[in-house]
């Protein structure tokens, strides 16, 4: 089985050679989703992970609208789902920022109690004092 079939189901690939249509929007949404996935997995900061999740939700919204526009242009069902998703994204963002504020309060680093030698490597010290670093969650007492 070929991983990259050049012509299947009447869909000529690469998409650059086909007229503008649904596959192009889906490919763009997939690229956006991949960027969001990378951001959510590669960053250690809670805020950056939240932003990655927002990007992934945006890609999903784009998919819904594209499917409705190209496959079912007279319907509004995909749009209804997208509205629901917008609501979800806003709530997620608001709750996420509120959580970040709480995290900052509960894991605020006691700067004065840190040993001076521990502050020498700046990057390591920054990670240790960053209240939004997900690696510090083990220190929390829930």
């Amino acid at each position, binding site marked *: 089985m070929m991983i990259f079939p050049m012509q299947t*189901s009447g869909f000529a690939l690469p998409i650059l050679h*086909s007229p503008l249509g649904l596959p192009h929007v889906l490919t763009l949404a*997939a*690229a956006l989703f991949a960027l969001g996935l990378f951001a959510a997995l*590669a960053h250690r900061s809670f805020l950056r992970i939240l*932003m990655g999740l927002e990007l992934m939700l945006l890609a999903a919204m784009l998919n819904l609208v594209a499917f409705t526009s190209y496959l079912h242009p007279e319907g509004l069902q995909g749009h*209804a789902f997208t509205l629901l998703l917008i609501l979800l994204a806003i709530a997620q963002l608001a709750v996420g920022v509120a959580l970040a504020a709480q995290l900052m309060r509960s894991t*605020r680093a006691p700067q004065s109690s840190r040993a001076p030698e521990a502050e020498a490597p700046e990057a390591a010290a920054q990670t240790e004092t960053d*209240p939004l670093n997900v690696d510090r969650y083990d220190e929390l007492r829930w």
Partner: protein
Amino acid sequence: MDVVIFTILAAFMLAGGAAMVWLPKPSHAAYALVGVMVTAALMVAWLKAEFLALALMLALAGGTALLVMVGLPLLSRLSPLNPSRPDEDRSFWAGIVAVLFLVITYRVLATTPWGAEDHSRLALTDAQRGLEAIRTLGETLRTEYALALMGGGFLVAVAIAVAVALNTSEADA
């Protein structure tokens, strides 16, 4: 003309997304995210869903911009927001997962009839049957459950307001 518009919007979205991932300052990354959202709203308008584009622009992009302008300065008052780049250890595996996702998506696109120029070919496929289910669900959501949807939105708004109020009172205390 459509190709030019799509190319410009796609380039802006991808550049904004990449900037969001790699810009070190959280505030800059958040502004890049707002840019991506505004471009996505324009893309949705280009897909002939103007009402949804407006909702996306006002609610999501506007809400995110508001949170960026109000939330991040408030957070930085609690503790300075450290600049951060993708972690080197995690980047390798995150890159592999992202590329794997793209390969799987490419594979799905290549083997489904969604790319067919003649969409009437979808009439007898499983994709169409799945679409029927989504249509029924969406129709129900839009009609019979509209009240529940609005009620849910209201409850979410109340929850957000209470969360903000609790945070504010705790901060004052």
